């Protein structure tokens, strides 16, 4: 039997061939393990080992590819391509890394929250108010998601006449953060900016919602020119995207409630306003009636006062007049004399009860 000729390569060619073979065999492989010897060189390159009980593999990635914080002891899943380095060392070139399991997701969440909080990204002073009644809304969501359907239904029920532009993106999985970032950039670069950008997604597992704890996405939301409203998951789910947004909605339905008033409330308010006018008019009529009645009373009182005053004055004049009556003077014993007072002349003397005719005998000065 003829022996197969052995293939002969240079070292470099052999490494290149091995890498081609590996790339063909494992174009994208996910490996789960515990992080060890994590380090960042020159703020650009990330090195760590991924290990389990049976072995350890060196991993390499760039800082910008590391979307969530990791540290030694944390269990992660890396999406990577196996590679043989020019020094003959086998390693994984990592494209993405995500924490594995709820505990590690939470740990990663807390690490990133502390980091961003330290930078002031969640500060209340940064929060902008949403427009009271926006006319143009930008929505970032998956149109297939139940959360999106809830949002649109509540929005349509509550208000109308709005221009709603919807960008269709993935809302879970490794590609989701970048798609949401592109959608945010799309809205923020429009000539006609929407008045608010709403990011929504219904409930899911911690892993499903982890896309909303992605550092570049959180930073992109923070720097959005347009105010943001984030409604992800259920009421109990809190993501970093929620925390950095100008406003957090507990659910997608709640996002619609925050955005627009309920037209039925407005109609009730309008009806109430109208109904309130009738009692007001009635009150005004009563007020007028009361005022007129009061004025009449005052007029009658004034006439009464004037009458009393005049009557009193008249009585007093009558009393004075009565005192001046000559008959009263005669009754007191005085006499009234008529005729020329000169010696020899006859005069008439009137007393209260008699008339006397007498002759003047003598007149002298007192």
């Amino acid at each position, binding site marked *: 039997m003829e022996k197969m000729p052995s293939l002969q390569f240079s070292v470099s060619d052999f490494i290149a061939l091995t890498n081609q073979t590996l790339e063909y065999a494992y174009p994208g492989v996910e490996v789960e393990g515990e992080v060890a010897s994590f380090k960042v060189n020159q703020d650009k390159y990330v090195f760590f080992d991924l290990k389990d009980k049976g072995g350890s593999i060196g991993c390499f990635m760039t800082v910008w590819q590391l979307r969530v914080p990791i540290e030694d002891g944390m269990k992660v899943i890396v999406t990577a391509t196996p590679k043989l380095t020019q020094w003959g060392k086998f390693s994984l070139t990592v494209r993405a890394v995500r924490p594995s399991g709820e505990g590690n997701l939470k740990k990663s969440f807390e690490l990133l929250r502390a980091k961003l909080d330290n930078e002031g990204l969640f500060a209340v002073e940064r929060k902008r108010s949403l427009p009271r*009644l926006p*006319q*143009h809304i930008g929505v970032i969501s998956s*149109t297939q998601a139940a959360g999106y359907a809830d949002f*649109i239904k509540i*929005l*349509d029920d509550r*208000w*109308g*006449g*709005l*221009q*709603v*532009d*919807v*960008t*269709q*993106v*993935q809302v879970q999985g490794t*590609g989701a953060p*970048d*798609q*949401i970032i*592109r*959608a945010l950039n*799309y809205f923020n670069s429009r000539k006609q900016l929407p008045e608010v950008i709403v990011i929504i997604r219904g409930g899911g597992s911690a892993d499903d919602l982890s896309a909303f704890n992605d550092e570049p996405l959180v930073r992109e939301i923070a720097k959005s020119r347009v105010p943001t409203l984030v409604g992800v998951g259920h009421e109990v789910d809190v993501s970093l995207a929620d925390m950095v947004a100008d406003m957090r909605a507990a659910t997608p339905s709640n996002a619609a409630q925050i955005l627009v008033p309920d*037209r039925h409330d*407005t*109609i009730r308010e*309008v*009806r109430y*306003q*109208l109904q*309130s*006018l*009738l009692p*007001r*008019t009635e009150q*005004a*009529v009563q007020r*007028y009636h009361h005022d007129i009645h009061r004025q009449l009373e005052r007029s009658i009182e004034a006439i009464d006062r004037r009458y009393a005053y005049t009557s009193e004055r008249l009585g007093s004049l009558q009393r004075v007049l009565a005192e001046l009556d000559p008959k009263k003077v005669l009754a007191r014993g005085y006499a009234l004399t008529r005729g020329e007072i000169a010696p020899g002349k006859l005069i008439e003397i009137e007393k209260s009860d008699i008339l006397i005719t007498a002759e003047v005998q003598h007149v002298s000065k007192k």
Partner: protein
Amino acid sequence: MSAKNNLKISEKTAKLNELVTWFDSDDFELEQALDKFTEAEKLAAEIEHDLLALKNNIEIVKAKFNEAE
């Protein structure tokens, strides 16, 4: 109904508020109250009609976001 109509609704609501305020103000005159009330009644009916007729325009953006441009 377009977004433009919302502005009209807000104008009508503002006018209705103005009328309601007039009833509480010193400008109130009984002789004008009936006309003002009729005007308010008409506005309220229009606002209700406009609000119920409003429809949203939902547009799915054609741009794709699944890969970098």
